[in-house]
């Protein structure tokens, strides 16, 4: 019984992505002066979240197809 590496990768990026999205929603706009006024935490957090969830879905589907 081996670990599917997509589980930890998906898990980690889902958690970090969700954290960044939440932080992006609550943080004051002044934080984003550095990043050219773009709320990068929110947007990049969403990217990480989608990546993480996709990884988890693939890993989960693989457990279903295996005998």
């Amino acid at each position, binding site marked *: 019984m081996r670990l599917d*590496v997509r589980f*930890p990768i998906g898990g*980690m*990026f889902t958690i*970090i992505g969700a954290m960044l999205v939440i932080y992006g929603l609550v943080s004051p706009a002044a934080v984003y002066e550095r*990043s050219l006024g773009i709320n*990068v*935490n929110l947007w*990049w957090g969403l990217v990480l979240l989608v*990546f993480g969830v996709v990884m988890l879905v693939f890993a989960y589907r693989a457990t279903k197809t295996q005998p």
Partner: protein
Amino acid sequence: MSHIQLGGIDYAILIIYFVFVLGIGWALRRVIRSSEDFFLSGRSIPAWIAGLAFISANLGAQEVIGMGASGAKYGIMTSHFYWVGAMPAMVFVGLFMMPFYYGSRARSVPEYLKLRFDEKTRGLNAITFAIMTVFSSGISMYALAKLLELVLGWSFHASIIVTGVIVLAYIFLGGLTSAIYNEVLQFFLIVLGFLPLVLLGLKDVGGWSGLTSKLAVVATNAGFEPGAWSHSWKYTDAATHNPMGIEWFGLIMGLGFAMSFGYWCTDFLVVQRAMAAGSMTAARRTPLIAAVPKMLMPALVILPGMLAIGMHATRGGFLPIGTDGQPNYNLAIPMLLAHYLPTGLLGLGLTALMASFMSGMAGNVTAFNTVWTYDIYQTFIRPGQSDSHYLRMGHAATVFGILASVVAAYAATRFNNINDILQLVFSFVNGPLFATFLLGMFWKRTTGHAAFFGLLTGTFAAAMHYGLTLPHGAVPGIKGGFLGTVLHTYPSEMALNFWTAIVAWTSCFVTTLAISLFTRRTKTDDELRGLVYSLTPRQSDGAMPWYKRPVTLAVGILAASAVLNVIFW
């Protein structure tokens, strides 16, 4: 300079990363039953995982920091380390060498040398390799701890202890599988952690055209044509026309051939990942799959350096000035991180930096414990023990490897130029290796004595060449010319290094060829089956659909890197 302040969320991201890397090691602890499980992942890794680990093990902190620095110092010409100095060699090792590495069932690169040649060639390679890996992991440990001290104000000792303990824990628990799984995780983290930095930087300077206009200022200030930082080939007609100080011939033969094939085709650090693959096809695909992200890596590691120097020249003082009056190029990526990323993404960027450091270090440590246990301990110290004995030795060697790296890291703080001296010695030792493998794999007449003395001659010739020549404007010593007489002056350090590699390769090739003709073969054709091209049955890919064959992927990679060379000509 003032330190960057981190927020709670930055630390939280770093801690989550630590928890996951340790968790992977913990989850894999039951997988290890035999020494093959520990050192070679039981040869069961799928190609895409092995491929990403292959590239990640190479993507250490020195690669990230060093390529960023070179991007600032030499501009887009640094991409030659990828499109010229990696793609052809990675394709070659996958298509032509993996059948012998993997097919021979050798457990390491030195063990292949034993099967193909003899015990002394293996010993020479194993011992120099073991020393080199420990020192490179120590030097990168030093580099990272210094960087974190400078940028974040973190304690040098704490950085070394924390990273050393974490890497030790996950390799000790899960062996190579754990290192490989973590390398895949680290790969994605490095890409996703640095990408926002590059995107923000490019947006800020006004895209590629904005960047080229800024780089034109850098180039003109340095006394070159305006395009010298944004063209990779255009100014390579003469060494004096480009910042790297090298002309096209030295570049192609030195970097594209001698140095790059020497590294990608013979360095066990990367080859081990392919040897851990689950099948011959997977092993051959490993370097090819790795080549795809490697090809795009310049956007992630070189571009930040170019952005940093562009802003340094046009917005004034972006990079701190070092004691030599030059900008501190090594800080290109860290300064960009601090400049663009707000708290939150800043934590992600720093975690990516940590991840690159750990992947490089774990690569070194897993290669070290394998070579030590199989090629030195089992061969020369205590042969004929049970497998569980060697497994225990593997665990012990992991601890020893980390401790030795820590000692090397502290040695680097004491003796300023120990890094330079070691890097130099490594280049002498590595330079000739590919000639030995090329002759060994493709000419059955090559003998063990020839391989051994060819390697020694190549190393000696490299040292002599380096000792008798000097880069322009340097004083004799560590930079070259240490033998007292200077016979030739090269336009730059880079040119001297490339030509040293050419000399090492050529002298080893000629010596090995000549001695082979004058010594008797000690291995029969039968013994060399599976080790030499002419005596090994061809890999038949006929059963696979054409788009799945390694050759198709290889052609695609070479074509794509040719296109990239043309685009950034």
